[in-house]
């Protein structure tokens, strides 16, 4: 588990949305091999999935070359399944979905072996 709290958030006691993010199916390789991360995402306006993707890229991917493993054309790259509380994000509004405290967001690579 990995607690990420942006410093100025702590200082200003700004509101945050507390969520859990999981990287499954091997995606954890670009996140220090940590599969589960508890996040406090800065909240000024409603925080959307689009904001979360920005936050992940800016604060959690150490090697910028790895960003293309996660994103393509401004959204989650093909072959990664995105789930909001165990439900396909396509059913929840995709990039426009507004995060709530306690949400579990999962990203999983599609597996191909057999």
């Amino acid at each position, binding site marked *: 588990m990995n607690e990420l709290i942006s410093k100025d958030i702590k200082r200003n006691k700004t509101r945050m949305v507390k969520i859990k993010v999981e990287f*499954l*199916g*091997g995606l954890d*390789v670009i996140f220090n091999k940590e599969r589960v991360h508890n996040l406090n995402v800065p909240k000024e306006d409603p925080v959307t999935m689009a904001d979360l993707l920005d936050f992940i890229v800016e604060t959690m991917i150490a090697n910028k070359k790895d960003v*293309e*493993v996660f994103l*393509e054309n401004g959204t989650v*790259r*093909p*072959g*990664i*399944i995105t*789930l909001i509380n*165990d*439900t*396909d994000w*396509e*059913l929840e509004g995709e990039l426009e979905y507004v995060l709530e405290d306690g949400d579990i967001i*999962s990203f*999983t*690579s*599609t*597996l*191909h*072996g*057999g």
Partner: protein
Amino acid sequence: TSDSPHPLSLEEYRRYGRQMIVEDIGGLKSQLKLKAAKVLVIGAGGLGCPALPYLTGAGVGTIGIVDNDVVDTSNLHRQVLHDSTKVGMLKCESAKQVLNKLNPHVEIVTYPVRLDYSNAFEIFEKYDCVLDCTDTPLTRYLISDVAVNVGIPVVSASGVGTEGQLTILNFQNEGPCYRCFFPTPPPPTSVSSCSEGGVIGPCIGLVGTMMAIETIKVIIGSYTSENFKPFLMMYSGFPQQTLRTFKMRGRQSKCLTCGDHPTINKEAIQSGSINYELFCGSRNYNVC
């Protein structure tokens, strides 16, 4: 034969009795559905090796096996239907030998070919249900596309390392297909981590066993148009064994294969105009 007074032989009653009395199976009626079913298993590898004997044991009437690969020593830790004396033999023939002995009531048909756009329809059209036990995105798109066009469901699974995934595609020609989930294939480079990942035998074996269970449900009608909801199951073997079920999108109206205006139809596939090799970018996919 289901109208005859003794639709099963005494030997068959003895053989299937312990499964027929399970309430979720539903007795003779379901056993006869299994007997009438024709199931195509594509790939006699890590997933096919457990799926095949359980389907054969359960009494599926006809089982086709598509695999043009031969048994190799490096397969045997996970492909436990084969054995060391079969190294070099076609996997589909090796499997057939074992399955014929397990249950002589089941007809095993082998296809020692590499599935492609030119041979898929001819094979699929003889079956009611297909199991995707293959290991490349290219084949997964092809299997789904052909199954949609032939009008049969796909029990589709995959696994790498200690993890596995399973879904049912094109259920009753209403459920989503592989392209509904993945309209765009992953970039070839993204699959590379898998090629070095290896696989633990019983982890991929567990997922293949799950496929047999889902196939039985499809055949006997446990899933219906009313109760079926698109799903993706995700199994993880380490550190603790977990199984999660994700609720997935339904059929996509924009889907090129099963949507409102499909362009990936039988003619397009068979003419070779759907270039799966080009579409998926590379043959480096063949990773597990």
